[in-house]
């Protein structure tokens, strides 16, 4: 694979991102390594071709934001909103992720090896997120579609005001949010979990150790007797 290096200590971010927005014919199949990210914000945002990007170190806010097709690896930790609104492709954070990881993401796969902060998968719209560690409070708030897999624990108010997303948690759940309830693990859900564990490097983890949570659907249409839940 043809490899290309950028050093963010020497090259402005604008130049790097501009290059990463080159036509797919230029980028497809290439591997781009970004050195010295040092927590810079907005690295590798808006990618739209089948390029492999390695951010070698820690990334700031919105790393790989709105990703399409690309495969982005952050070798360190990522700041707020990693892979926010991702459409497709794979984003893999080897360290920890801060708040709102994978917010509103519509497609693709976000893998976080460590823990994720508050509001992981908030407003999730179809993407898959696998967190090797734990997730903070208010994760999957108003999540509409997609799957969130948590190998560790979940904080308070998991899945508050949930729509149709599936939440798989292996550890403890501190509390469930309004309208979120435990569901029986049917075959379809189990298969989804098995596939996601395999794709994210956790093939050895048993799907039987997870609980499934989903929407009780009582808040789907406003009714005054539920006013206290809003």
């Amino acid at each position: 694979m043809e490899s290309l290096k950028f050093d963010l200590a020497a090259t402005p971010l604008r130049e790097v991102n501009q290059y990463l927005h080159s036509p797919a014919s230029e980028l497809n199949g290439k591997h781009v390594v970004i050195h010295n990210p040092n927590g810079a914000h907005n690295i590798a945002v808006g990618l739209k071709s089948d390029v492999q990007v390695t951010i070698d170190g820690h990334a700031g806010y919105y790393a790989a934001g709105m990703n399409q097709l690309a495969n982005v690896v952050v070798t360190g930790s990522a700041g707020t909103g990693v892979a926010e609104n991702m459409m497709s492709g794979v984003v893999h954070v080897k360290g920890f992720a801060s708040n709102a990881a994978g917010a509103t993401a519509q497609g693709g796969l976000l893998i976080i090896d460590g823990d994720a902060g508050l509001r992981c998968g908030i407003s999730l719209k179809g993407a898959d997120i696998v967190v090797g560690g734990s997730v903070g409070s208010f994760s999957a708030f108003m999540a509409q579609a997609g799957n969130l897999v948590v190998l560790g624990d979940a904080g308070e108010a998991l899945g508050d005001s949930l729509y149709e997303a599936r939440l798989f948690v292996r550890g403890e759940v501190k509390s469930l949010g309004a309208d979120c309830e435990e569901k029986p693990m049917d075959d379809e859900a189990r298969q989804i979990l098995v596939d996601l564990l395999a794709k994210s490097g956790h093939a050895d983890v048993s799907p039987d150790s997870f609980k499934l949570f989903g929407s009780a659907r009582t808040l789907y249409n406003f009714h005054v007797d539920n006013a206290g839940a809003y």
Partner: protein
Amino acid sequence: MSDTPKTPQTQPRFSATFDPYTLSEIRRAAATGIYDIRGAGAKRKLPHFDDLLFLGASVSRYPLEGYREKCGTDVVLGTRFAKKPIHLKTPVTIAGMSFGALSGPAKEALGRGASAVGTSTTTGDGGMTPEERGQSSILVYQYLPSRYGMNPDDLRKADAIEVVIGQGAKPGGGGMLLGQKISDRVAKMRCLPKGVDQRSACRHPDWTGPDDLEIKIAELREITDWEKPIYVKVGATRPYFDVTLAVKAGADVVVLDGMQGGTAATQEVFIEHVGIPTLAAIRPAVQALQDMGMHRKVQLIVSGGIRNGADVAKALALGADAVAIGTAALVALGDNDPRLESEYQALGTTAGAYDDWHEGKDPAGITTQDPELMKRLDPVKAGRRLANYLAVMTMEAQVIARACGKSHLHNLEPEDLVALTVESAAMAKVPLAGTSWIPGQVQY
């Protein structure tokens, strides 16, 4: 027959506090146990542009010849950072109104009307439709808290991006599209099951304060290679501080929406009691821009209750660069037309007062997703009506500007205005007519 004189009867007297509307609302609340949700903006009487008058030219200043001497109306938005600023022929733009709240043909008609006169339209909650992108030569893409239908391809297709923080009708509030308006198409665009109430969040999911907003704006610029102007839209509450923070966060354009501004669906109590009138918001916003040396560098778009060329001229004279219209554009398309009176009656209302835009039963086919009702709106004819109306507003503003001796609408200034009421004088910071008194300002 008795001769006892009849006691004179006093007329039945209604309370000003418990007026008939208030009484009906108490009864409605008691019967349903639910607050009233409706469309449109604040309906109570508020200090507004009608409370201002222009001082035409006479001996001390000379006017321009109507029809002969040029009076420019164009405006460029996004000159601060964007590589491709937007050029409009008229400073009257179409405000963001969501597909979902509005039908596909209504969005198409807005695009047709705006494009015909060289101005922009704006998407809304729910994303960009091909109808609108196809017909709008200049399209602003809203980036909202819900991110329904938010797609980076559409972001790149837009001519500008508007980060929505709030709306004048409901500053601090999210949105709600009732289940009956969630058709298959709307459900698919928003990634929701059909028929459920779609709740729109009131805060963005991946940023909170102004420091985060700066990073978010930088992200949007990076994704679009710094080409597109980035607007920040706020509901009018603390305009001085909100405008200051938006400019510090890197906005190219600030959109300021007063409490008369329309909405597709919000609680009546929110619409009528939260936020400040458009008239009260403009001067503090302009002051903020001036204090930063940014007036005319970061453009200000004002909305909320703009109805005619006089309103446009007054907003511009107070320091705005352009205005946006929502409700008035819908009326130009055919909303609330007395021609449909019998149908409004059947819905328990009357033409001119119909505001149940969230219910999807609009007889004019505008605020609906019902395929039969939608067909009633001919997007070509409705677009033509909107184009006519926009042209009239522009000409009216020119009439006023020429009378004040201005060769461009942007040359109008607060010194051209006086106020009819003490309130409007204080809010607009122009003297009460016939006096030199501006309440709240120290006279030296």
